[in-house]
């Protein structure tokens, strides 16, 4: 196998790299760019721990190849944290203790922010439905649902 040149934006920075065609995006982010906030839980697209944004859409980074992101804009938890885009959501997660071990959390925040961008006031069932591809073994989900609901209310200018 011969490495292939790729060029893409990651968290707003231009990245040029040579990667093997078989390298998935999760491993590229973690091993080549050292963006270890993207976690690998199952490597077959079920657990959601590796969720990142590619061109604005959330994807399982274990299920796409790095070479498929040629010219794409990739955003990871590090990027969303540094830009402040999800600061309120992170605050709600902290106040509600919506994470324990934290391994699912980057993916969970990605999925939650995706929902909040699509829907200004999702109800609890919609929140649970939208998170249904993100596995959390620690919390039992309720605290996560609460934190997202709180963030939705506060973004909509409402109080619970």
């Amino acid at each position, binding site marked *: 196998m011969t490495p292939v040149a790729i060029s893409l934006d990651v968290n707003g920075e231009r990245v040029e790299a040579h990667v093997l065609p078989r390298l998935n995006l999760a491993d590229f982010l*973690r091993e080549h760019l050292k963006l270890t906030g993207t976690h690998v*839980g199952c490597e077959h697209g079920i657990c959601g721990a590796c969720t990142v944004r590619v061109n604005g859409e959330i994807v399982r980074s274990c299920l796409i190849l790095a070479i498929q992101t040629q010219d794409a804009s990739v955003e990871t938890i590090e990027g969303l944290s540094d830009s402040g885009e999800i600061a309120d959501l992170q605050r709600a997660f902290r106040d509600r203790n919506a*994470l324990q071990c934290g391994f699912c959390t980057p993916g969970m*925040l990605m999925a939650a922010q995706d929902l909040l961008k699509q829907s200004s006031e999702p109800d609890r069932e919609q929140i649970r439905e939208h998170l249904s591809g993100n596995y959390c073994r620690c919390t039992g989900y309720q605290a996560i649902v609460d934190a997202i609901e709180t963030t939705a209310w506060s973004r909509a200018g409402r109080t619970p």
Partner: protein
Amino acid sequence: MTDAPETRDALSALDRPNSYIGKTMPRPNLDRLMQGRGLYVSDIELPRMGHVVFLRSPHAHAKITGINALAARQLPGVIAVVTGQELATVITPWVGVLSHLKGLKSAPQSAIAIDRACWQGEAVAAIVATSRAAAEDAAEQVSVGYDELDAVTDMRTALDPTTSVIHASLGDNLAFERHHDAGAVEDAFAASDEVVDVEFIFGRHTGVTLEPRSVVADWNAAEARLTIYQGTQAPHMVQNIAALHLGLQEAQVRVVCKDVGGSFGIKVHIYADEMATYALSKLLRRPIKFVADRVESFNTDIHARDHRCRGRIGVKRNGTIMAFEIDDLTGIGPYSMYPRTSAIEANQVVNLVGGPYVTRNYRARARVVFQNKNVMCQYRAVGHPIACSVTEGLVDLAAMKIGMDPVEIRRRNLIADDAYPCASPSGLRFEQLSHHAALAKLIRMMDYDVLRAEQAALRARNIHRGIGIASFIEVTNPSAAFYGVGGAKISSQDGVTVRLDAQGAVICQTSITEQGQGSESLTAQIVGSVLGVSMDRVRVILGDTDNTPYGGGTWASRGAGIGGEAALQATKVLRRNILDVAAAILQMTPGELDIVNNNVVNAGDGTSRIELGELARIVYFRPDTLPPGIQPELMATRHFVPRAYPFAFTNGVQASWLEVDTETGFVKLLKHWVVEDCGTIINPQLVDEQIRGGVVQGLGAALFEKCVYDERGQLTNASMADYLVPMSGEMPDIDIGHVVSPTLESELGAKGAGEAGTAGAAAAVTNAVNDALRPFGTIVTEIPLTPQIILTALGRI
């Protein structure tokens, strides 16, 4: 005992202005995890690090006739291919037995199988390369010759004379057997008006931690020292075992535990592939990294449960429970796990059945047998879900038989709240439980009568909802009785060191560990409260055998109760020491001073006298200005272990409200309630979230989770696509209430809450399903409660 969290009079050290005890405080380490800036083992990279991939047996039981790695060794990036025989030159085998589990036997287990593989997934060779991908490529080029052997897969026939014996040297496939007979069981059954006799079946399931097991082992040949980075719950246990089997002194092994992506008991054991990774580092004189993939996790992370338990209950028509009897059978795989053994779960089942109830008549047999399946061992709430499901299932079936409400039969038989101290029928000693207060609170929370009326109204419309109740007891704060007395070097005590730094902040080193429960937070809350400093001034260091006191770690709901008490006592000493110095500086007596909000103040009127930073400055940089004869000690260490009781017991009760679709067999969980008594509550939010998370793990076992093996010992659903775990969409909201009965064994009074949720969830769900199915005259006693099981019970398939 009180109905709401209160601070006891005795807790003077905690009952201070600005105390954090009993308050919800955000955990200090959350921002790091939320920003993707944690450090899990899989994130760690070291210079010259090699990556190991294990080639694993595709057969449940097979003789290894040869391993040919010539082609693999030629591939680019390959550092070494190591067989079990070769690795045995640096690491010795082990036998997972403990002397207090009388009769427990197991066979020597090697880090990598030598000559014979005993389950599908056992490692037969290690391939080390410069990347995991290169190692995986090379693994495909290693050819292993196997002669398949008979696989023992069905626990029910494992002891038959016609079944082959897995380890000939042991004589049979029986690992452990325990009998218990208390009271007058035969007489009690004879005097019963009704006897219920059923078999309960519990699926084999596993922990599915989101972060797979991972290790980086770094043998530094120049220092003759091994550093192990591992997501473990018990760093000192890992240090002891690694040293023992690598022929090192414990001082030559350092175990570092950074962030851990979930453990729940999965990461409290030492696995063969982890031992192999330590040994490979020593053999190859470089850092070696092992990260299990998800298929490996399913095939090698310990499995749990997999019990078949026949249960009998005798009851009088007035609801008096006369006796319990159980006959429990469990299959544990080919080896008893090391070092905690695989007999503990069955032992716990015997200990816990009937535990909440008054009757003293109890007979039990438990048998633990070997099989050619993955190893089984302790997972969250060890034995509790089985004991609770059997006990509470029997109580409900007895109530059904005599036409009594399930709440009423419990009211008539639960041990009275004023009857303590007392003992269970299996001889466990209870200090103070609160079954009746908990049940009363649960009934109020769930509005029981209204729910019953709703259930009846819906039944008329062919909607079948059920209410299930499950009382439980939970073992917490284990003393040396758990492992130490059996010869395992697993500490039951924990230690905490606190010191005031040069700017008046506090550094606290504790031997308990953090896997998300909030160990760091509860330690900081205790230290801050007792010392009189704000929590943001307290930094907690854990998970490093070089830099913490010696101790057990975090498992069996012991972090708050044992580690928390050590933190309390250490901080009291530091506080006294600070006040001694302050008194010398201020020319007062220590009794006239207090520490409040980071300041030494007049005890009488609260006037600030000296900021802790200023005191520290004087002590560390201008000791020449202190009165003669004063040697300040701004660092203190204390250890704690429970001595009066071998275990603390907590109690609680759960309820499930659900709907059974009698056409499809699907169960929809509508609501779940828990009332728990974990003694003193340090951080209510953390306790509640421990319980919620625990409940959901129990709900997974109740409805979804099962490792499905075929008759040849092949695990057929080793992926997250096939093994179902609870996801957000199926889970209900869970309401939690508390009763508070602090233990008097410690000043803190905390017991523990880590297992409570998992202990009773499946029992509540099964009872609720049976309640829903009541009009159909059928019952279910097997979990997971898949549609197939429910439709079979309904006679639809």
